[in-house]
């Protein structure tokens, strides 16, 4: 009995090691061939953001998948925390379909046309691309002098130039020049909120720091919900949200304004032959009513 046990142990361990070794080899092998052929009979692997994410809320709203407080995005979709996690998941999985900020698109993922329109800045500004949204900044109470200056800066020509640099779309292409350059400012500014708006404001904060080196701006990405809440309760100077505020929230804030526009792109793996979808198709896919890629291409 004991001898049996011992041999079992040795065999078990060896089997595990061998299995791992083989698996790795197969893994790389099939990965290479995978990028060449796309099997349309495979099921779709939906990738979504977590509940509460501004991108998810905006996306669900724009593809008509909302039902009161909850969205109708298939609960069986893989939920990923953050824009990059979604991008990576789709870039890695041949049969995945997800959605991400147009500003966060990269070469590893392929954006799909919506109603034949590419998700580009021009198309979004022109209003042709239908899945687009505002990047809002929010202020609750009185702003400190330095925070007020930063607020003005975001809506100035200089601030709007940054929006373009980081790959988003200016909310105001004819913004006035920044007038506060001569002010002698110092102190801290706290900004927090949407993970999607974060890179824009962070880049603006850097540009602002070049003008006012004594001002310390800390920008935190905590999510749109947290951005709105903290701007209302005063724990931050400026909140960021990648969705429009609901009536309840608008009542509680002093001002909310868009600093940039962003489109949400539906993304697939680069090997996916899919070119274009209608909003209804996107809606069908993300509510879980489409099971295989065959159903999409037809």
């Amino acid at each position, binding site marked *: 009995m004991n001898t049996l046990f011992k041999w079992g142990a040795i065999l078990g*361990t060896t089997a595990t090691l061998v299995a791992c070794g083989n698996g790795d080899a197969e893994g790389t092998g099939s990965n290479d061939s*995978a990028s060449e052929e796309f099997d349309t009979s495979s099921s779709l692997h939906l990738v979504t953001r977590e509940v509460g994410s501004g991108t998810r809320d905006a996306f669900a709203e724009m593809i008509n998948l909302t039902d009161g407080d909850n969205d109708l995005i298939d*609960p069986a979709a*893989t*939920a990923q925390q953050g824009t990059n996690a979604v991008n990576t998941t789709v870039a890695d999985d041949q049969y995945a379909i997800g959605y991400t900020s147009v500003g966060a698109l990269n070469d590893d993922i392929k954006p799909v046309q919506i109603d034949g329109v590419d998700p580009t800045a021009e198309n979004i500004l022109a209003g042709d691309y239908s899945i687009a949204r505002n990047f809002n900044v929010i202020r609750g109470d009185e702003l400190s002098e330095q925070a007020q200056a930063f607020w003005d800066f975001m809506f100035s020509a200089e601030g709007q130039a940054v929006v373009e640099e980081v790959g988003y779309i200016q909310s105001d292409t004819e913004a006035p020049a920044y007038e506060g350059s001569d002010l002698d400012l110092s102190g801290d500014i706290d900004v927090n909120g949407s993970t999607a708006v974060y890179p824009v404001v962070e880049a603006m904060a850097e540009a602002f720091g070049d003008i006012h080196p004594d001002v310390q701006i800390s920008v935190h990405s905590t999510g749109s919900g947290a951005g709105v809440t903290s701007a209302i309760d005063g724990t931050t100077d400026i909140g960021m949200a990648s969705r429009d505020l609901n009536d309840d929230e608008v009542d509680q804030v002093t001002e909310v304004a868009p600093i940039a526009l962003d489109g949400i792109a539906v993304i697939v793996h680069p090997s996916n032959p899919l070119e274009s979808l209608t909003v209804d198709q996107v809606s069908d896919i993300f509510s879980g009513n489409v099971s295989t890629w065959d159903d999409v291409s037809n």
Partner: protein
Amino acid sequence: MNDLKEKVAHGVFLLAAITSILSLVVIVIFIFTNGLPMMIDYGVFDFLLGTTWNRTTFGILPMIVGSIVVTIGAVLIGVPVGIFTAIFMAEFCPPSVYRFLKPAVNLMAGIPSILYGFFALRIIVPWVRDTFGGPGNSMLAAILLLGIMILPTIISLSESAIRSVPRSYYSGSIALGASKERSIFAVLVPAAKSGIFSSVVLGVGRAIGETMAVVMVAGNQPIMPRGLTQGVRTLTTNIVMEMAYASGQHRDALVATGVVLFVFVMLINGIFLYIKNKEAK
């Protein structure tokens, strides 16, 4: 003078003890006062046995089942590997290998969980996807990851349990004519079984509480687990996924998820203490 010194020292130690106890008490009070009213308000059974989770409906059965299944899976992988490694390290390992193996195991225990998560995301997830199909971010990926993560706990504690068995047991067994292997498996390991078992219990505790690594690979769907290659959401990942956005009852529901998790951890620690006490007798 000496008397005063004694008193001061006594005070310092007492203060230290009170600080740690107090923080525990505060945590317990916080979690329960925030979570319990929500559970009662919402209905304890609806909360614990409900299978739908969204912004207005809070049923955490999928996450309870998810946590339990993932933990059992991790134990099935981690315990045999861990215990055999411990036996190897305690009894078979040549000193030259042990010199590297021991620090390696300790290092494994010190690797931050987010790094385990990265590793799993880049290695385990694609492997699961290519080998078994499905999206890759799955229960199996989480199980494999946790199976590895609980190894150092199980190895270190099991090894010291085996080493703490009096050497005379082993010598006696050898003297009676048993082989080395037989002495180890029939005498040493059974004598160390309560220590080994408590290492398993602590491993379970680590597996059920792990958050950051799991959230990266598990898929995190708030629905009943549908199979090894499909995604799963655990109690911990449920909290970390949504805490940043939640407000109102949704937030309380997440704290109440913490209550359930806390009860699980208390159960596990209770079992651990019970075994320890039995061992002491």
